[in-house]
């Protein structure tokens, strides 16, 4: 990473640290949702295994999604508040500006994922994954974070106001609920089931579920990585072209 990118990263990091709402949305909210599902609703679902073991991979993805709104708003803020012109006149590369946002979003997601996993263990989460499985799971998580971060940066660049940027990420936040995160897709009604089976979050969650249970499914892992690569490339190209058009 270039020095400029590191400087921008430090700036974005301070922003996150000074914005309690961001931290709440990214870290606490997913934990609260997990507690709600596991304690209140978990017993009502029969998923074949202990509910906490079933739900944790889905909650990990939920944690990724919840951090995105803040990034979209912040990216848009940079573009609409004139500071971007200052950076341009100082010859700060667009790469550095965007990389700063992507890396901070990923770090924020990873912190909230660590919190989710920690709380999950407290709630009785007992994965049977070996070291290699854990490593692969982390790889899938990082790939998902990376891909959604670029997509979110693009959304932030394309939006007209910080508010509409944050709104535009809502579908991303809702997607995990319409996947196999909470209950298996097979238990859903006609229409929703097909949607859940074919949307990107389901293979990502299923691959994590398999890896953490110690019985990975190569099909899901490949599908998950393919989705991540696709989303990442679309997000990156969209971000770069929008950036060029905008400034």
């Amino acid at each position, binding site marked *: 990473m270039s020095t*400029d990118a590191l400087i921008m990263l430090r*700036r974005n990091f301070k*922003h996150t640290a000074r914005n309690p709402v961001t931290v709440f949305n990214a870290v606490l909210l997913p934990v609260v949702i997990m507690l709600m599902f596991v304690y209140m609703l978990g017993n009502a679902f029969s998923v074949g295994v202990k509910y906490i073991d079933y739900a944790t991979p889905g909650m990990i993805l939920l944690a990724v999604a919840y951090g995105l709104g803040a990034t979209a708003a912040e990216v848009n803020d940079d573009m609409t*508040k*004139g500071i971007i012109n200052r*950076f*341009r*006149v*100082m010859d*700060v590369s667009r790469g550095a500006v965007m990389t700063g946002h992507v890396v901070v979003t990923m770090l924020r997601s990873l912190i909230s994922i660590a919190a989710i996993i920690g709380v999950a263990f407290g709630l009785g989460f007992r994965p049977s994954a070996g070291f290699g499985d854990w490593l692969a799971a982390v790889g899938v998580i990082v790939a998902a974070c990376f891909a959604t971060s670029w997509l979110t940066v693009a959304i932030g660049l394309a939006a007209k106001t910080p508010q509409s940027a944050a709104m535009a990420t809502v579908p991303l936040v809702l997607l995990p609920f319409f996947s196999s995160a909470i209950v298996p897709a097979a238990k859903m009604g006609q229409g929703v089931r097909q949607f859940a089976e074919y949307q990107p979050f389901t293979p990502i969650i299923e691959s994590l579920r398999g890896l953490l249970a110690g019985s990975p499914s190569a099909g899901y892992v490949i599908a998950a990585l393919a989705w991540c690569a696709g989303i990442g490339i679309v997000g990156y190209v969209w971000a770069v072209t929008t950036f060029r058009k905008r400034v």
Partner: protein
Amino acid sequence: MRTSDIAASGLWKAFGDKVVLDGIDFDVAAGSVFSMLGPNGAGKTTTVNVLTTLLKADAGTVRVGGHDVATETREVRAAIGVTGQFAAVDELLTGRENLRLMADLKRVRSAGQVVTGLLERFDLAESADKLASTYSAGMRRKLDLAMTLVGGPRIIFLDEPTTGLDPRSRRTMWDIVRELVAGGTTVFLTTQYLEEADHLADRIAVLDQGRLVAQGTPGELKRQIPGSHVRLRFTSIHELDAAARLLAGATQDDENLTLRVPGDGGVKSLQALLSLLTEHSIDADELSVHTPDLDDVFLALTGRANTEVSAR
């Protein structure tokens, strides 16, 4: 002869069908203040954006600091500092951190010292560790300008630096610009206020609908526009005639019973005028002092009133 730091020739820019800059030529000597005066929508900000590499012109050439803005962007950027119309400070950082960010991006050596120096110079030391979002408009502008000065750019662009500031902050801003010029910096500034251009600039260019309608020193420009005058209103045509006979060079308006007396509007000349009237027992009903403003400049230079200029 001093070299020129900014030279624009045949600058032309259109957004779609709308021509924003219609062939502009000007020259700014190194170490001088050049002010572009014009109402909202005249093309001032577009000019600044072209000069500072943020926007490409459709035709014409611009050299800044001896480099072509279109082909030697990097060299131009290294020589300039820009303060835009809207304060470009990072609100979630403190004043000190904002300056530090600039110093880091410019790879300034002993950045801490540079930052502290600027905070003191701009009277921001007390609020240095508060978030910029808590700053007043005047403080934000000062911080914005301080950020522009990090690294000591040779040529500085200020786009309407005092719009929206209270009179006191405006004076502070003017003092800072004067200091900069005393230190050898070249300053290009845009403004809507004739008074500001008059106070600061070595040369003024008047921009109207994308064209420069006049250019020169403040003195030269003021000779082209009606000077300040005192307006006297009388209750009868008899008194108006008497006063007009007394004050040579005054312009008489029979319909409104007013008399326009050229003069600087200063206390001394007013006293002299009033005592002259008293001496001859002429009773003026009303007196007002009129100093030329942007409206007069536009009326004189373009033959039409400038409707867009904001009231001050």
